[in-house]
Protein backbone atom coordinates (compact mmCIF):
# COMPACT_ATOMS: atom_id res chain seq x y z
CA UNK A 1 0.00 0.00 0.00
CA UNK A 2 1.33 3.42 -0.92
CA UNK A 3 1.97 5.71 2.01
CA UNK A 4 -0.53 8.54 2.01
CA UNK A 5 -0.17 11.54 4.27
CA UNK A 6 -3.42 12.14 6.14
CA UNK A 7 -2.45 15.00 8.40
CA UNK A 8 0.47 17.36 8.59
CA UNK A 9 1.31 20.34 10.78
CA UNK A 10 3.98 22.94 10.16
CA UNK A 11 5.29 25.22 12.88
CA UNK A 12 2.11 24.74 14.90
CA UNK A 13 2.23 26.98 17.96
CA UNK A 14 -0.12 27.88 20.79
CA UNK A 15 0.66 30.07 23.78
CA UNK A 16 -1.28 30.60 26.98
CA UNK A 17 -0.03 33.89 28.39
CA UNK A 18 3.71 33.46 28.84
CA UNK A 19 3.55 29.69 28.46
CA UNK A 20 4.07 28.09 25.05
CA UNK A 21 1.96 24.95 25.33
CA UNK A 22 2.66 23.82 21.75
CA UNK A 23 5.89 25.08 20.29
CA UNK A 24 6.53 25.08 16.50
CA UNK A 25 5.49 21.46 16.03
CA UNK A 26 6.06 19.77 12.66
CA UNK A 27 4.07 16.56 12.68
CA UNK A 28 3.06 14.07 10.01
CA UNK A 29 0.49 11.31 10.25
CA UNK A 30 0.09 8.61 7.62
CA UNK A 31 -3.19 7.04 6.66
CA UNK A 32 -3.89 3.80 8.51
CA UNK A 33 -1.55 4.44 11.43
CA UNK A 34 -2.33 4.03 15.07
CA UNK A 35 -0.20 6.81 16.47
CA UNK A 36 0.27 7.26 20.17
CA UNK A 37 1.26 10.60 21.66
CA UNK A 38 2.93 10.27 25.02
CA UNK A 39 4.57 12.74 27.35
CA UNK A 40 4.41 14.02 30.92
CA UNK A 41 1.43 15.93 32.26
CA UNK A 42 1.39 19.46 30.94
CA UNK A 43 3.52 18.53 27.90
CA UNK A 44 0.90 20.03 25.60
CA UNK A 45 -0.70 16.83 24.28
CA UNK A 46 -4.31 17.89 24.79
CA UNK A 47 -3.59 21.35 23.44
CA UNK A 48 -1.94 19.83 20.38
CA UNK A 49 -4.90 17.62 19.47
CA UNK A 50 -7.18 20.55 20.32
CA UNK A 51 -5.38 22.49 17.58
CA UNK A 52 -5.92 19.61 15.16
CA UNK A 53 -9.64 19.32 15.92
CA UNK A 54 -10.14 23.08 15.85
CA UNK A 55 -11.30 23.42 19.44
CA UNK A 56 -8.31 25.66 20.07
CA UNK A 57 -7.02 28.30 17.63
CA UNK A 58 -3.28 28.34 16.86
CA UNK A 59 -1.05 31.40 17.26
CA UNK A 60 1.10 30.30 14.35
CA UNK A 61 1.59 27.43 11.94
CA UNK A 62 -0.64 25.44 9.63
CA UNK A 63 -2.64 22.22 9.70
CA UNK A 64 -3.13 20.21 6.51
CA UNK A 65 -5.68 17.42 6.44
CA UNK A 66 -6.31 15.19 3.47
CA UNK A 67 -4.42 17.61 1.23
CA UNK A 68 -6.43 20.65 2.38
CA UNK A 69 -5.34 23.57 4.56
CA UNK A 70 -7.76 23.49 7.49
CA UNK A 71 -5.94 25.93 9.76
CA UNK A 72 -8.77 28.47 9.64
CA UNK A 73 -11.64 25.99 9.42
CA UNK A 74 -14.05 26.00 12.41
CA UNK A 75 -14.18 22.81 14.47
CA UNK A 76 -17.57 21.62 13.26
CA UNK A 77 -16.45 21.81 9.63
CA UNK A 78 -13.36 19.75 10.43
CA UNK A 79 -15.60 17.08 11.93
CA UNK A 80 -17.53 17.00 8.66
CA UNK A 81 -14.24 16.52 6.81
CA UNK A 82 -13.58 13.44 8.90
CA UNK A 83 -11.81 14.44 12.11
CA UNK A 84 -13.59 12.95 15.12
CA UNK A 85 -12.54 13.98 18.59
CA UNK A 86 -13.20 12.49 22.00
CA UNK A 87 -12.58 14.63 25.03
CA UNK A 88 -10.11 13.89 27.82
CA UNK A 89 -12.96 14.37 30.29
CA UNK A 90 -16.00 12.29 29.36
CA UNK A 91 -18.36 14.42 27.35
CA UNK A 92 -21.71 12.91 26.40
CA UNK A 93 -25.42 13.78 26.71
CA UNK A 94 -26.16 12.35 30.14
CA UNK A 95 -29.91 13.04 30.06
CA UNK A 96 -30.42 11.32 26.71
CA UNK A 97 -30.50 7.62 26.01
CA UNK A 98 -27.50 5.81 24.57
CA UNK A 99 -29.45 5.49 21.33
CA UNK A 100 -30.07 9.24 21.16
CA UNK A 101 -26.43 10.01 21.91
CA UNK A 102 -25.37 7.87 18.99
CA UNK A 103 -28.14 9.20 16.75
CA UNK A 104 -26.96 12.79 17.21
CA UNK A 105 -23.53 11.68 16.06
CA UNK A 106 -24.79 9.62 13.10
CA UNK A 107 -27.10 12.42 12.02
CA UNK A 108 -24.02 14.50 11.33
CA UNK A 109 -23.52 12.53 8.11
CA UNK A 110 -26.94 10.94 7.47
CA UNK A 111 -30.33 12.43 6.67
CA UNK A 112 -32.90 9.65 7.00
CA UNK A 113 -34.19 8.45 10.36
CA UNK A 114 -33.93 4.80 9.36
CA UNK A 115 -30.28 5.20 8.34
CA UNK A 116 -29.54 7.15 11.50
CA UNK A 117 -31.11 4.45 13.67
CA UNK A 118 -29.15 1.73 11.86
CA UNK A 119 -25.87 3.65 12.22
CA UNK A 120 -26.53 4.21 15.93
CA UNK A 121 -27.09 0.49 16.37
CA UNK A 122 -23.97 -0.37 14.40
CA UNK A 123 -21.82 1.97 16.51
CA UNK A 124 -23.24 0.50 19.72
CA UNK A 125 -22.43 -3.01 18.54
CA UNK A 126 -18.91 -1.97 17.63
CA UNK A 127 -18.15 -1.14 21.28
CA UNK A 128 -20.42 -3.76 22.86
CA UNK A 129 -23.09 -1.38 24.13
CA UNK A 130 -25.99 -2.73 22.09
CA UNK A 131 -27.82 -3.96 25.20
CA UNK A 132 -27.71 -0.48 26.70
CA UNK A 133 -29.30 1.42 23.80
CA UNK A 134 -32.53 2.35 25.67
CA UNK A 135 -30.71 3.36 28.88
CA UNK A 136 -30.02 6.88 29.99
CA UNK A 137 -26.38 7.64 29.17
CA UNK A 138 -25.84 9.31 32.54
CA UNK A 139 -26.80 6.06 34.26
CA UNK A 140 -23.98 4.07 32.60
CA UNK A 141 -20.85 3.16 34.50
CA UNK A 142 -17.84 5.38 33.91
CA UNK A 143 -16.21 2.76 31.67
CA UNK A 144 -19.33 2.44 29.57
CA UNK A 145 -19.60 6.20 29.23
CA UNK A 146 -16.08 6.27 27.81
CA UNK A 147 -17.03 3.52 25.38
CA UNK A 148 -20.13 5.46 24.42
CA UNK A 149 -17.96 8.43 23.60
CA UNK A 150 -15.75 6.29 21.40
CA UNK A 151 -18.88 4.90 19.73
CA UNK A 152 -20.08 8.45 19.03
CA UNK A 153 -16.78 9.03 17.29
CA UNK A 154 -17.27 5.84 15.29
CA UNK A 155 -20.80 6.80 14.29
CA UNK A 156 -19.23 9.75 12.46
CA UNK A 157 -17.32 7.28 10.24
CA UNK A 158 -14.23 9.45 10.59
CA UNK A 159 -11.04 9.33 8.59
CA UNK A 160 -9.16 10.30 11.73
CA UNK A 161 -10.23 9.39 15.25
CA UNK A 162 -8.55 11.39 18.00
CA UNK A 163 -8.75 9.88 21.47
CA UNK A 164 -7.52 11.87 24.47
CA UNK A 165 -6.57 9.46 27.28
CA UNK A 166 -9.43 7.05 26.54
CA UNK A 167 -8.38 4.36 29.05
CA UNK A 168 -8.00 6.68 32.01
CA UNK A 169 -10.05 5.24 34.86
CA UNK A 170 -10.92 1.99 33.08
CA UNK A 171 -10.52 -1.45 34.71
CA UNK A 172 -8.20 -4.07 33.18
CA UNK A 173 -11.12 -5.92 31.60
CA UNK A 174 -12.47 -2.71 30.13
CA UNK A 175 -9.02 -1.90 28.76
CA UNK A 176 -8.86 -5.31 27.04
CA UNK A 177 -12.21 -4.65 25.41
CA UNK A 178 -11.03 -1.19 24.44
CA UNK A 179 -7.93 -2.62 22.70
CA UNK A 180 -10.18 -4.84 20.59
CA UNK A 181 -12.39 -1.89 19.70
CA UNK A 182 -9.49 0.31 18.60
CA UNK A 183 -7.94 -2.46 16.53
CA UNK A 184 -11.23 -2.87 14.72
CA UNK A 185 -11.61 0.89 14.20
CA UNK A 186 -8.09 1.05 12.81
CA UNK A 187 -9.12 -1.12 9.86
CA UNK A 188 -11.10 1.79 8.46
CA UNK A 189 -9.73 4.89 10.19
CA UNK A 190 -6.46 6.41 11.26
CA UNK A 191 -6.18 6.65 15.03
CA UNK A 192 -4.37 9.31 17.03
CA UNK A 193 -4.25 8.40 20.67
CA UNK A 194 -3.00 10.25 23.72
CA UNK A 195 -2.23 7.58 26.27
CA UNK A 196 -0.51 7.31 29.62
CA UNK A 197 -0.76 3.55 30.01
CA UNK A 198 2.42 2.22 28.34
CA UNK A 199 0.97 -1.30 28.06
CA UNK A 200 -1.85 0.10 25.95
CA UNK A 201 0.61 2.14 23.89
CA UNK A 202 2.88 -0.83 23.23
CA UNK A 203 -0.08 -3.06 22.39
CA UNK A 204 -1.66 -0.69 19.91
CA UNK A 205 0.66 1.90 18.47
CA UNK A 206 2.32 1.52 15.10
CA UNK A 207 4.37 4.62 15.92
CA UNK A 208 4.90 6.89 18.91
CA UNK A 209 5.42 10.62 19.21
CA UNK A 210 6.87 11.93 22.46
CA UNK A 211 5.92 15.46 23.43
CA UNK A 212 7.73 17.39 26.11
CA UNK A 213 7.20 21.04 26.98
CA UNK A 214 5.36 21.63 23.75
CA UNK A 215 8.02 20.15 21.48
CA UNK A 216 8.49 16.78 19.82
CA UNK A 217 11.21 15.07 21.77
CA UNK A 218 11.30 11.83 19.79
CA UNK A 219 9.32 9.94 17.23
CA UNK A 220 9.48 6.43 15.80
CA UNK A 221 8.42 2.80 16.11
CA UNK A 222 7.43 1.68 19.63
CA UNK A 223 10.51 -0.47 20.29
CA UNK A 224 12.91 2.31 19.34
CA UNK A 225 11.07 4.84 21.49
CA UNK A 226 11.04 2.51 24.47
CA UNK A 227 14.82 2.19 24.20
CA UNK A 228 15.54 5.90 23.62
CA UNK A 229 17.49 7.19 26.64
CA UNK A 230 16.25 10.78 26.22
CA UNK A 231 12.69 9.52 26.33
CA UNK A 232 13.32 7.34 29.35
CA UNK A 233 14.84 10.33 31.05
CA UNK A 234 12.09 12.78 30.27
CA UNK A 235 9.09 10.57 30.55
CA UNK A 236 9.25 6.86 31.09
CA UNK A 237 11.46 7.14 34.14
CA UNK A 238 9.10 9.51 35.86
CA UNK A 239 5.92 7.81 34.71
CA UNK A 240 3.68 6.34 37.37
Amino acid sequence: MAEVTLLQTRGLTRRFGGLTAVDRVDFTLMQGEIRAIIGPNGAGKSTFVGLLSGRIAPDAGTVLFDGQDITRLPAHRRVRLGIAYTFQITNIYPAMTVRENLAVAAQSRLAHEAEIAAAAQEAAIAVGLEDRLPDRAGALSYGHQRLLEVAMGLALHPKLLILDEPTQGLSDDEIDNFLTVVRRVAQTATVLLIEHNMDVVMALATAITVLDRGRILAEGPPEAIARDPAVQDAYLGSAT
Partner: protein
Amino acid sequence: MRNLRLFALTIAVLAGLFGVQFVISGYPVLALTRILILAVFAMGYNVLMGYTGLVSLGHALFFAAGLYGAGLAAYYGGVALPIAFAAGIAAAAVLSLVVGLLALRTQTVSFMIVTLMFAQAGYLATLHFSAITGGDQGLSLPAHARSFSLLGQEIALTSATARYNIALAVFAVVLLALYALTQGPRGRLFAAVRENPERTRMLGYDVGRIRLLAFTVSGTISGVAGALYGLMFGFIGSSFAEFRSSVEVLLFTLVGGPGTLFGPLVGTTVMTLLIDRLSGLTSAYLIAVGVLLIVLTLWFPKGILGTIRDRWAPWLR
Protein backbone atom coordinates in the same frame (compact mmCIF):
# COMPACT_ATOMS: atom_id res chain seq x y z
CA MET B 1 -37.78 7.06 16.05
CA ARG B 2 -41.09 8.88 15.61
CA ASN B 3 -43.20 9.20 18.69
CA LEU B 4 -46.46 7.42 17.88
CA ARG B 5 -48.06 7.74 21.30
CA LEU B 6 -47.50 11.48 21.27
CA PHE B 7 -48.97 11.68 17.78
CA ALA B 8 -52.06 9.78 18.92
CA LEU B 9 -52.40 12.18 21.85
CA THR B 10 -52.05 15.12 19.47
CA ILE B 11 -54.92 13.88 17.33
CA ALA B 12 -57.04 13.09 20.39
CA VAL B 13 -56.50 16.57 21.87
CA LEU B 14 -57.40 18.25 18.59
CA ALA B 15 -60.53 16.13 18.26
CA GLY B 16 -61.46 16.94 21.84
CA LEU B 17 -60.94 20.67 21.31
CA PHE B 18 -63.10 20.53 18.20
CA GLY B 19 -65.86 18.61 19.97
CA VAL B 20 -65.94 20.76 23.08
CA GLN B 21 -67.60 23.65 21.24
CA PHE B 22 -70.79 21.61 21.01
CA VAL B 23 -70.86 21.26 24.78
CA ILE B 24 -69.93 24.72 26.04
CA SER B 25 -71.29 28.14 25.17
CA GLY B 26 -70.96 31.77 26.18
CA TYR B 27 -67.95 33.02 28.14
CA PRO B 28 -66.10 29.66 28.22
CA VAL B 29 -65.87 29.71 24.41
CA LEU B 30 -64.25 33.13 24.52
CA ALA B 31 -61.93 32.03 27.32
CA LEU B 32 -60.91 28.92 25.41
CA THR B 33 -60.30 30.96 22.25
CA ARG B 34 -57.91 33.19 24.19
CA ILE B 35 -56.24 30.16 25.76
CA LEU B 36 -55.62 28.56 22.36
CA ILE B 37 -54.06 31.74 20.96
CA LEU B 38 -51.89 32.32 24.01
CA ALA B 39 -50.94 28.64 23.94
CA VAL B 40 -49.59 29.17 20.42
CA PHE B 41 -47.49 32.01 21.86
CA ALA B 42 -46.19 29.69 24.58
CA MET B 43 -45.57 26.92 22.04
CA GLY B 44 -43.37 29.31 20.11
CA TYR B 45 -41.57 30.33 23.28
CA ASN B 46 -41.12 26.67 24.19
CA VAL B 47 -39.16 25.96 20.99
CA LEU B 48 -36.43 28.27 22.23
CA MET B 49 -36.69 27.92 26.00
CA GLY B 50 -37.86 24.34 26.41
CA TYR B 51 -36.34 22.48 23.50
CA THR B 52 -33.18 24.53 22.88
CA GLY B 53 -32.52 25.74 26.42
CA LEU B 54 -32.29 29.50 25.82
CA VAL B 55 -34.29 31.68 28.20
CA SER B 56 -35.50 34.88 26.54
CA LEU B 57 -37.15 37.69 28.47
CA GLY B 58 -38.18 39.51 25.34
CA HIS B 59 -40.73 37.43 23.48
CA ALA B 60 -43.39 40.11 23.90
CA LEU B 61 -41.50 41.77 21.05
CA PHE B 62 -42.32 39.00 18.58
CA PHE B 63 -45.91 38.69 19.75
CA ALA B 64 -46.21 42.45 19.27
CA ALA B 65 -44.53 42.29 15.86
CA GLY B 66 -47.25 39.90 14.74
CA LEU B 67 -49.94 41.95 16.41
CA TYR B 68 -48.87 45.27 14.90
CA GLY B 69 -47.78 43.82 11.57
CA ALA B 70 -51.21 42.32 11.05
CA GLY B 71 -53.19 45.05 12.80
CA LEU B 72 -51.57 48.00 11.05
CA ALA B 73 -51.83 46.28 7.67
CA ALA B 74 -55.56 45.80 8.24
CA TYR B 75 -56.11 49.24 9.79
CA TYR B 76 -54.13 51.40 7.36
CA GLY B 77 -53.59 49.09 4.40
CA GLY B 78 -57.17 47.93 4.34
CA VAL B 79 -55.96 44.57 3.06
CA ALA B 80 -57.96 41.38 3.42
CA LEU B 81 -57.50 39.66 6.77
CA PRO B 82 -55.57 36.62 5.48
CA ILE B 83 -53.05 39.01 3.93
CA ALA B 84 -52.86 41.06 7.11
CA PHE B 85 -52.29 37.82 9.02
CA ALA B 86 -49.43 36.89 6.66
CA ALA B 87 -47.96 40.39 7.03
CA GLY B 88 -47.89 39.99 10.81
CA ILE B 89 -46.14 36.64 10.57
CA ALA B 90 -43.61 38.01 8.10
CA ALA B 91 -42.86 40.96 10.39
CA ALA B 92 -42.21 38.63 13.31
CA ALA B 93 -40.07 36.32 11.17
CA VAL B 94 -37.81 39.13 9.94
CA LEU B 95 -37.56 40.74 13.36
CA SER B 96 -36.73 37.48 15.12
CA LEU B 97 -34.05 36.66 12.56
CA VAL B 98 -32.40 40.06 13.06
CA VAL B 99 -32.73 40.09 16.85
CA GLY B 100 -31.55 36.48 16.96
CA LEU B 101 -28.41 37.31 14.99
CA LEU B 102 -27.55 40.01 17.52
CA ALA B 103 -28.80 38.52 20.80
CA LEU B 104 -27.26 35.09 20.22
CA ARG B 105 -23.81 36.61 20.53
CA THR B 106 -24.53 36.49 24.25
CA GLN B 107 -25.51 33.66 26.57
CA THR B 108 -27.47 32.89 29.75
CA VAL B 109 -27.94 36.02 31.86
CA SER B 110 -26.62 38.43 29.25
CA PHE B 111 -28.93 36.80 26.71
CA MET B 112 -31.88 37.38 29.02
CA ILE B 113 -30.90 41.01 29.46
CA VAL B 114 -30.27 41.65 25.76
CA THR B 115 -33.59 40.10 24.70
CA LEU B 116 -35.30 42.14 27.42
CA MET B 117 -33.69 45.34 26.14
CA PHE B 118 -34.78 44.68 22.57
CA ALA B 119 -38.32 44.05 23.77
CA GLN B 120 -38.32 47.23 25.86
CA ALA B 121 -37.11 49.18 22.83
CA GLY B 122 -40.00 47.70 20.86
CA TYR B 123 -42.48 48.56 23.61
CA LEU B 124 -41.21 52.15 23.82
CA ALA B 125 -41.42 52.41 20.04
CA THR B 126 -45.12 51.50 20.15
CA LEU B 127 -45.61 54.36 22.62
CA HIS B 128 -43.34 56.80 20.83
CA PHE B 129 -45.10 56.37 17.49
CA SER B 130 -48.51 56.62 19.11
CA ALA B 131 -49.72 58.76 16.20
CA ILE B 132 -49.60 55.57 14.16
CA THR B 133 -50.00 52.81 16.72
CA GLY B 134 -52.48 54.47 19.01
CA GLY B 135 -50.00 54.01 21.88
CA ASP B 136 -51.45 52.57 25.06
CA GLN B 137 -54.95 53.59 24.00
CA GLY B 138 -54.50 51.22 21.09
CA LEU B 139 -56.51 50.96 17.90
CA SER B 140 -59.79 49.18 17.32
CA LEU B 141 -59.93 47.63 13.90
CA PRO B 142 -62.68 49.09 11.67
CA ALA B 143 -65.72 47.13 10.53
CA HIS B 144 -64.19 46.11 7.20
CA ALA B 145 -61.47 44.31 9.14
CA ARG B 146 -63.94 42.27 11.16
CA SER B 147 -64.85 39.83 8.42
CA PHE B 148 -63.28 38.13 5.45
CA SER B 149 -64.26 35.71 2.75
CA LEU B 150 -62.86 32.25 2.58
CA LEU B 151 -63.60 30.08 -0.48
CA GLY B 152 -66.48 32.33 -1.38
CA GLN B 153 -67.92 32.23 2.13
CA GLU B 154 -68.15 35.36 4.30
CA ILE B 155 -66.79 34.78 7.80
CA ALA B 156 -67.61 37.32 10.51
CA LEU B 157 -65.18 37.63 13.41
CA THR B 158 -67.95 38.97 15.59
CA SER B 159 -69.15 35.36 15.80
CA ALA B 160 -67.65 33.56 18.78
CA THR B 161 -67.95 30.23 16.98
CA ALA B 162 -66.04 31.51 13.94
CA ARG B 163 -63.31 32.91 16.19
CA TYR B 164 -63.01 29.68 18.12
CA ASN B 165 -62.68 27.55 15.01
CA ILE B 166 -60.15 29.83 13.39
CA ALA B 167 -58.07 29.87 16.56
CA LEU B 168 -58.35 26.09 16.74
CA ALA B 169 -57.30 25.70 13.09
CA VAL B 170 -54.19 27.84 13.60
CA PHE B 171 -53.44 26.06 16.88
CA ALA B 172 -53.74 22.69 15.09
CA VAL B 173 -51.40 23.70 12.27
CA VAL B 174 -48.79 25.00 14.72
CA LEU B 175 -49.15 21.93 16.93
CA LEU B 176 -48.69 19.50 14.03
CA ALA B 177 -45.78 21.50 12.64
CA LEU B 178 -44.12 21.48 16.04
CA TYR B 179 -44.75 17.77 16.40
CA ALA B 180 -42.87 17.24 13.14
CA LEU B 181 -40.11 19.65 14.12
CA THR B 182 -39.49 18.51 17.68
CA GLN B 183 -39.98 14.75 17.38
CA GLY B 184 -37.71 14.31 14.37
CA PRO B 185 -33.99 14.84 13.71
CA ARG B 186 -34.23 18.62 14.09
CA GLY B 187 -35.70 18.30 17.57
CA ARG B 188 -32.91 15.96 18.52
CA LEU B 189 -30.41 18.62 17.51
CA PHE B 190 -32.22 21.26 19.56
CA ALA B 191 -32.00 18.96 22.57
CA ALA B 192 -28.35 18.22 21.83
CA VAL B 193 -27.56 21.94 21.82
CA ARG B 194 -29.49 22.40 25.05
CA GLU B 195 -27.84 19.45 26.83
CA ASN B 196 -24.25 19.93 25.69
CA PRO B 197 -23.31 22.59 23.11
CA GLU B 198 -19.59 21.80 23.10
CA ARG B 199 -20.18 18.10 22.47
CA THR B 200 -22.63 19.01 19.71
CA ARG B 201 -20.10 21.29 18.04
CA MET B 202 -17.53 18.50 18.15
CA LEU B 203 -19.99 16.17 16.42
CA GLY B 204 -19.92 18.45 13.40
CA TYR B 205 -22.74 20.93 14.01
CA ASP B 206 -22.78 24.69 13.75
CA VAL B 207 -24.33 25.36 17.16
CA GLY B 208 -24.82 29.05 16.39
CA ARG B 209 -26.92 28.23 13.34
CA ILE B 210 -29.06 25.71 15.20
CA ARG B 211 -29.72 28.32 17.88
CA LEU B 212 -30.58 30.93 15.27
CA LEU B 213 -33.01 28.54 13.62
CA ALA B 214 -34.69 27.83 16.95
CA PHE B 215 -34.82 31.54 17.75
CA THR B 216 -36.37 32.44 14.42
CA VAL B 217 -38.93 29.63 14.52
CA SER B 218 -39.74 30.59 18.09
CA GLY B 219 -40.17 34.28 17.30
CA THR B 220 -42.19 33.58 14.16
CA ILE B 221 -44.67 31.34 15.99
CA SER B 222 -44.98 33.98 18.71
CA GLY B 223 -45.82 36.38 15.90
CA VAL B 224 -48.47 33.99 14.57
CA ALA B 225 -50.12 34.19 17.99
CA GLY B 226 -49.85 37.99 18.09
CA ALA B 227 -51.28 38.44 14.59
CA LEU B 228 -54.12 36.07 15.37
CA TYR B 229 -54.90 37.78 18.67
CA GLY B 230 -55.06 41.24 17.14
CA LEU B 231 -57.27 40.19 14.25
CA MET B 232 -59.56 37.91 16.26
CA PHE B 233 -60.40 40.51 18.87
CA GLY B 234 -60.03 43.53 16.60
CA PHE B 235 -57.76 45.46 18.90
CA ILE B 236 -54.03 46.27 18.94
CA GLY B 237 -52.41 48.10 21.84
CA SER B 238 -48.99 48.59 23.40
CA SER B 239 -49.91 46.65 26.54
CA PHE B 240 -49.24 43.47 24.56
CA ALA B 241 -45.65 44.60 24.03
CA GLU B 242 -45.06 45.09 27.75
CA PHE B 243 -42.53 43.16 29.82
CA ARG B 244 -45.50 41.50 31.44
CA SER B 245 -46.23 39.52 28.24
CA SER B 246 -42.68 38.22 28.15
CA VAL B 247 -42.91 37.10 31.76
CA GLU B 248 -46.32 35.50 31.31
CA VAL B 249 -45.23 33.38 28.36
CA LEU B 250 -42.21 32.23 30.37
CA LEU B 251 -44.53 31.41 33.24
CA PHE B 252 -47.00 29.48 31.05
CA THR B 253 -44.19 27.39 29.58
CA LEU B 254 -42.56 26.78 32.93
CA VAL B 255 -45.81 25.71 34.61
CA GLY B 256 -46.83 23.37 31.81
CA GLY B 257 -43.44 21.79 31.25
CA PRO B 258 -40.63 23.21 29.11
CA GLY B 259 -39.53 20.91 26.31
CA THR B 260 -42.83 19.04 26.13
CA LEU B 261 -45.20 19.39 23.18
CA PHE B 262 -48.29 19.93 25.35
CA GLY B 263 -46.66 21.80 28.22
CA PRO B 264 -47.53 25.23 26.78
CA LEU B 265 -51.21 24.31 26.36
CA VAL B 266 -51.44 22.90 29.88
CA GLY B 267 -49.53 25.82 31.40
CA THR B 268 -51.53 28.43 29.52
CA THR B 269 -54.82 26.83 30.54
CA VAL B 270 -53.90 26.52 34.20
CA MET B 271 -52.37 29.98 34.43
CA THR B 272 -54.99 31.98 32.53
CA LEU B 273 -57.68 30.45 34.73
CA LEU B 274 -55.58 31.25 37.79
CA ILE B 275 -54.70 34.76 36.64
CA ASP B 276 -58.37 35.55 36.10
CA ARG B 277 -58.87 34.73 39.79
CA LEU B 278 -55.61 36.32 40.95
CA SER B 279 -56.13 39.69 39.34
CA GLY B 280 -59.57 39.76 40.94
CA LEU B 281 -58.11 39.03 44.35
CA THR B 282 -54.94 41.09 44.37
CA SER B 283 -53.78 44.27 42.72
CA ALA B 284 -50.21 43.17 43.38
CA TYR B 285 -50.65 40.68 40.57
CA LEU B 286 -47.10 41.00 39.22
CA ILE B 287 -45.64 40.33 42.67
CA ALA B 288 -47.69 37.16 42.91
CA VAL B 289 -46.43 36.11 39.49
CA GLY B 290 -42.83 36.86 40.50
CA VAL B 291 -43.11 34.78 43.65
CA LEU B 292 -44.66 31.96 41.66
CA LEU B 293 -41.81 32.08 39.13
CA ILE B 294 -39.20 31.79 41.88
CA VAL B 295 -41.03 28.91 43.57
CA LEU B 296 -41.37 27.07 40.26
CA THR B 297 -37.76 27.56 39.23
CA LEU B 298 -36.47 26.33 42.57
CA TRP B 299 -38.80 23.44 43.33
CA PHE B 300 -40.70 22.55 40.21
CA PRO B 301 -38.48 23.36 37.23
CA LYS B 302 -39.87 20.62 34.99
CA GLY B 303 -43.46 21.82 35.24
CA ILE B 304 -46.56 19.66 35.21
CA LEU B 305 -45.91 17.61 32.07
CA GLY B 306 -42.15 17.54 32.54
CA THR B 307 -42.69 15.91 35.93
CA ILE B 308 -45.18 13.41 34.52
CA ARG B 309 -42.77 12.66 31.70
CA ASP B 310 -39.86 11.95 34.04
CA ARG B 311 -41.92 9.78 36.40
CA TRP B 312 -44.23 7.84 34.12
CA ALA B 313 -44.28 8.74 30.44
CA PRO B 314 -40.91 9.33 28.74
CA TRP B 315 -42.67 9.73 25.39
CA LEU B 316 -44.40 12.88 26.64
CA ARG B 317 -41.86 15.31 25.25
